[in-house]
């Protein structure tokens, strides 16, 4: 599995991809990794925060449910939620099918870009999950 090089990764298996939008600032798209969705199994429900919610780095911002388990998801960066992936309401399986693309969870206006420091690169994350399994 390829983990995109432009993304950064957390120990709790979230990825974050930051893009600078003019007039808005740094916008981070956040999701869970391929490894995470494979551990969870078939996802049946995704619980996401409302637009406008203020997130703190490392705090839980929602959860992902499979039939037999629930996992909290943690914010890799802090900021205000600008969008959540509404398509997941009726099609939570998108997170299984394309976790690092169409299965994104939320978009956040980053309050502090230095939150990205200390997150893993794609290569580091691959080693990390290689070690875990």
């Amino acid at each position, binding site marked *: 599995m390829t983990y995109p090089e432009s993304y950064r990764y957390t120990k709790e298996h979230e990825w974050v991809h930051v893009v600078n939008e003019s007039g808005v600032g740094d916008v981070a798209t956040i999701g869970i990794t391929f490894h995470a969705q494979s551990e969870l199994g078939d996802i049946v429900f995704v619980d996401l925060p409302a637009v406008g919610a203020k997130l703190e780095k490392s705090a839980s911002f929602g959860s992902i449910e499979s*039939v*037999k388990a629930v996992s909290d998801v943690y914010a890799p960066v802090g900021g205000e939620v600008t969008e959540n992936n509404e398509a997941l309401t009726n099609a939570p399986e998108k997170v299984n099918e394309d976790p690092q693309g169409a299965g994104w969870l939320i978009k956040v206006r980053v309050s502090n870009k230095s939150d990205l420091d200390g997150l893993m690169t794609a290569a580091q994350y691959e080693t990390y999950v290689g070690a875990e399994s």
Partner: protein
Amino acid sequence: MLAVCGLQSADELFSQIPAEARLKRPLDLAPGISEFEIVDYFKSMAEKNAGGSSRGFASFLGAGVYNHYRPVVVDTVVSRGEFLTSYTPYQSEISQGTLMTIFEFQTMICQLTGMDVANASMYDGSTAVPEAAMMAIRVTGRQKVLVARTVHPEYRDVMGTYAKNQGLPVQEFGYDADSGQIDWKDLEAKLDKQTACVIIQSPNFFGIVEDVKKAAELAHASGALLVFTFSEAVSLGILEPPRDADIVAGELQSFAISPSYGGPFAGIMAAKEKFIRQLPGRLVGQTTDTHGNRAFCLTLATREQHIRREKATSNICTNQALIALMATVYMELYGKAGLHELALQNLAKAHYLGSRVQPHFSGPYFNEFVAAGDGLSVEEISEELLARKIIGGLALKKFYPELSNTMLLCATEMTKRADMDALAETFNQ
């Protein structure tokens, strides 16, 4: 078998228990007795007890526990070992019998109450109400609970126990002294932006039918949810269901569940579709198996304690499956026509009694009403009735000090005219 385990004596099985923790004497309980002696014992207990027509007593007690006829088929079905001795249906392939009966139960509770989704049962009405309040608190993010004084006093007590420990403010609102219905002014004065839910009962504890639509309008205007409760399920055979409520939490004891000195009963919880993930308790869903055949399974388990642990919607694990099955058989036996006719009979019986003993409140009543002592006190009336082998209604003094000389009378399809006449005679002396 001991040899297989490499042990010399059964005592060695317990060698892992430290000496300080071991019981060093036999249990101080009499030796076991035979089946015949067990029956004898419980029969002698029953002889010191009244119940049904045993010892020849007729009863006018209601107040949350009702005497309704239990068709023989109910016990025939629940006595089958495959229902009686089976486990919670976690393993779908060998529990389709239980799962399908629960799916039918869930469906009928929705039809009965006008809600979109219902769970597989709660312990009883008194615990379902606080669970509904906690659900409303989760949904609205508000804390305050408003409950009518005309909700069953024991349901309110249990609500109080749950609320106290979570630091939730519970406030009561009163009733109109003439009609016995909700005091709308009092409710309006207490509703505010902190109110998570308003809890009402209909027919209420006094047996009187409430204006559910109005209660819903008031609650919703303040952004609160309406929680509806009931303790006499037969009333729903004739009364419009609470379609405007958000959550229904009630008691199904009237449906072929023996009074049994207060339990086990079967509570129900039902709600509008949008609250489905906040509903506590077990849920059975329809799906397919690998051959595409229709099949049922427990679902949305991630709300529950065994997965969500400290973040669960409730700590409930065991429900009331066998008792709910009694109610399911009853609902299917009586069916649409039967429950309607049964409710009409209850109405007729109670209104006959109400034509001979003056109801204290003016509001419309189903099969219960409050009557005041006149001439004789309610205590004297009760004593005279007992001498005539009649158990009178519940004296309300202990729950409503302002109604100290009244009793709550109930008549059902099982109440005989002759007993109602005898009661009326005693009252009207």
